[in-house]
């Protein structure tokens, strides 16, 4: 993984000093809250319902054991002993005190971490495929390019005061696990006709109150032109994106208003003015940064490990976890181990400090000290030898981290909602917990198969409800929470936006409605391998509507 050199280390230290200075000016009253607000928002510090919330960046979701231990320590020292992993592969602390933030940031800097640009109207943490570098379907590891974009976008002098926040995601695999089509800029690595690897660039995707699937602005872009082309897109957006209404300020609105053809023309016109790509992104810099992402020193192993196969036969619980949570690895004898942060009845994405310490230790022992965070709010150990899987699983079981529900009903994406968030209109966590409890029986979940439920507590859609196979949006109707259900959304490479199925449900009935939808699906699927999404795409909303809203 990427390691800071002296430059990076010095930069982050200076950024902490700058924020310390700003915080002191706020605490002394030299800065008003109004003046301090944009400054703290450039550094991930929100004022929520009950307290400040600090969002710490985990660039493209990659962490070392040392870093995860530091996150655990911070949870204990400055928070209430836990942290919340987010859909942007970051971690949030819900209870830090303003006066402690500079010290907290200093501790993060000690392990090459920061909170730069995790909020504010700037380019946010660049996200990527959690299986980068190990996925069997990958064309090229995208992390080097994600790191290049991280560096380039960090305190970019021109693009820190954009019309609205700006999110970039990159995937190196055709099976999209990073939801790139739902980002302001989505990047897919792909080959051109001459078999050279470059990028397809999508623009204008997003969720929020106007969900849009991004469209292709550039079918294939050479690697060395990545930063200059993005710079051209950013410049058009910065100059012409709407600033009169924050709900119309994302790039998707500009792209829709101009049409993709005209938007592309404007980007190309700006691109022509930019000095040569080599100046913005020197070739040796690509080499320097991508070299950090060389594979670890794998052992030479047979692909089949006999002891492991025997354990699978002997231990049903282990076999069940293997069946749901393990993905195929590109290196023989290795596996990708996904750790669910969705225990039955738990809060999606939350991890206690004790769990973080445990995972850091397990990663050190079994996964070259590396951990990944997923946009679905789970964790991954990317390099586990099959011969170590049983010991890993036993370690996970001890800390309530071995829930065998990856991609099943209870693997729910959920925003913090009205339990924490100042923007929320309804609670989302209790709905998630109730659905999870209702489907506590894992065998029942397995029978249902792959099903992505995503819950947001307001129209801003942090819980990605638009992209949920079943999406749930919490709203407020005259002081009562109610929940609108959408069906058919998907964040994969065939992305789609869910359709509203009908009138909303109360907090008492929404779980029944979800269960009913799932039972209808089980009745009408053609065979057990037809997923919920496939069935929905085949039959449309009618059978579900009929069952949910039948009058007699």
């Amino acid at each position, binding site marked *: 993984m990427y390691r800071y050199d002296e430059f990076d280390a*010095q*930069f982050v230290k200076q950024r902490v*000093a700058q924020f310390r200075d700003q915080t002191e000016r706020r605490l002394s009253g030299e800065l008003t809250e109004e003046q301090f607000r*944009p400054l703290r928002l450039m550094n991930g510090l929100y004022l929520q319902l009950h307290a400040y919330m600090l969002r710490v960046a985990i660039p493209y979701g990659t962490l070392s054991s040392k870093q995860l231990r530091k996150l655990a320590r911070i949870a204990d020292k400055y928070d209430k002993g836990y942290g919340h992993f987010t859909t942007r592969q970051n971690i949030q602390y819900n209870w830090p005190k303003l006066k402690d933030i500079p010290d907290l940031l200093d501790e993060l800097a000690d392990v090459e971490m920061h909170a730069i640009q995790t909020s504010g109207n700037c380019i946010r943490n660049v996200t990527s495929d959690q299986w980068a570098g190990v996925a069997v379907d990958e064309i090229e590891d995208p992390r080097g390019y994600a790191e290049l974009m991280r*560096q380039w976008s960090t305190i970019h*002098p021109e693009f*820190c*005061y954009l019309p609205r926040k700006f999110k970039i995601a990159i995937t190196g695999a055709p099976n999209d696990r990073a939801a790139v089509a739902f980002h302001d800029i989505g990047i897919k690595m792909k080959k051109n006709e001459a078999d050279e690897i470059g990028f397809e660039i999508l623009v204008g995707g997003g969720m929020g109150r106007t969900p849009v699937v991004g469209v292709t602005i550039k079918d294939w872009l050479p690697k060395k032109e990545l930063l200059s082309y993005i710079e051209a897109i950013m*410049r058009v957006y910065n100059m012409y994106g709407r600033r009169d209404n924050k709900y119309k300020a994302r790039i998707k609105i500009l792209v829709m208003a101009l049409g993709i053809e005209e938007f592309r023309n404007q980007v190309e016109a700006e691109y022509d003015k930019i000095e040569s790509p080599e100046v913005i*992104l020197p070739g040796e810099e690509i080499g320097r940064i991508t070299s950090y992402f060389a594979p670890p020193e794998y052992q030479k192993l047979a692909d089949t490990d006999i002891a492991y196969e025997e354990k699978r036969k002997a231990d049903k619980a282990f076999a069940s976890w293997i069946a749901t949570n393990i993905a195929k690895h590109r290196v023989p004898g290795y596996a990708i181990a996904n750790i669910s942060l969705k225990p039955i009845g738990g809060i999606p994405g939350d991890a206690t400090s004790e769990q973080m310490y445990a995972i850091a230790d397990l990663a050190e022992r079994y996964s070259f000290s590396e951990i990944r965070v997923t946009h679905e709010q789970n964790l991954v150990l990317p390099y586990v030898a099959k011969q170590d899987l049983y010991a890993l699983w036993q370690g996970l079981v001890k800390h309530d981290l071995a829930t065998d529900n990856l991609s099943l009903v209870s693997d729910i994406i959920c925003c913090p909602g009205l339990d924490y968030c100042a923007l929320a209109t309804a609670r989302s966590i209790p709905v998630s917990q109730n659905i999870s409890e209702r489907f506590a029986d894992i065998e029942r979940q397995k029978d249902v198969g792959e099903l992505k439920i995503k819950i947001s507590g307001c129209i801003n859609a942090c819980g990605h409800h638009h992209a949920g196979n079943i999406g749930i949006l919490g709203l407020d109707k005259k002081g009562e929470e109610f929940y609108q259900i959408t069906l058919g959304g998907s964040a994969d490479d065939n992305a789609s936006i869910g359709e509203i199925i009908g009138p909303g449900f109360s907090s008492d009935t929404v779980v029944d409605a979800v269960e009913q939808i799932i039972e209808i699906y089980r009745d009408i699927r053609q065979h057990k391998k037809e997923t919920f999404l496939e069935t929905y795409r085949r039959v449309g909303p009618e059978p579900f509507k009929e069952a949910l809203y039948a009058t007699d």
Partner: protein
Amino acid sequence: MPLIKNDTFVKDPWQYLGDEDNITNETDYVIVPLQRLTKEAGEFQSKISNLGAALPNDQDLQNLKPFLADVKLVALNFPKFADGRAYSQARLIREDLGFEGELRATGDVFPDQAVSMMRCGFDAFEVSENVPLETWKRAVEILNHMYQRSYAVSGDNIRM
């Protein structure tokens, strides 16, 4: 408005000329709204030796192009701290249009944004009465490492 150049307060020889203000043979060192400059181009170009242009932040820079040889100063505006359009205008004026005169930041100019403004090409800053020079200098010096090449900045502190 106090004016800062090279991290110190300086006397400002320039004045803003409104839409109604007449020009005389004495008129000099005036910053004129680009719209008026466009309408009365001949008049200004013949009579005034030190001419500046002021642009709103939604102005198409093509309209500035015909005057670049005549103006010694371009003033860009930040109507609000958070409205960053003039950063892009500044870069284009320096890098694409090649303007080498004074590029002045006006409006809501805050010390914590000074470095980004300099890096986009600004070299003069109109600040509010209550900005202490000390705060300005600290804000400029506190973060001197940067990842991108940019205007008027070079050396070991630049990554790319």
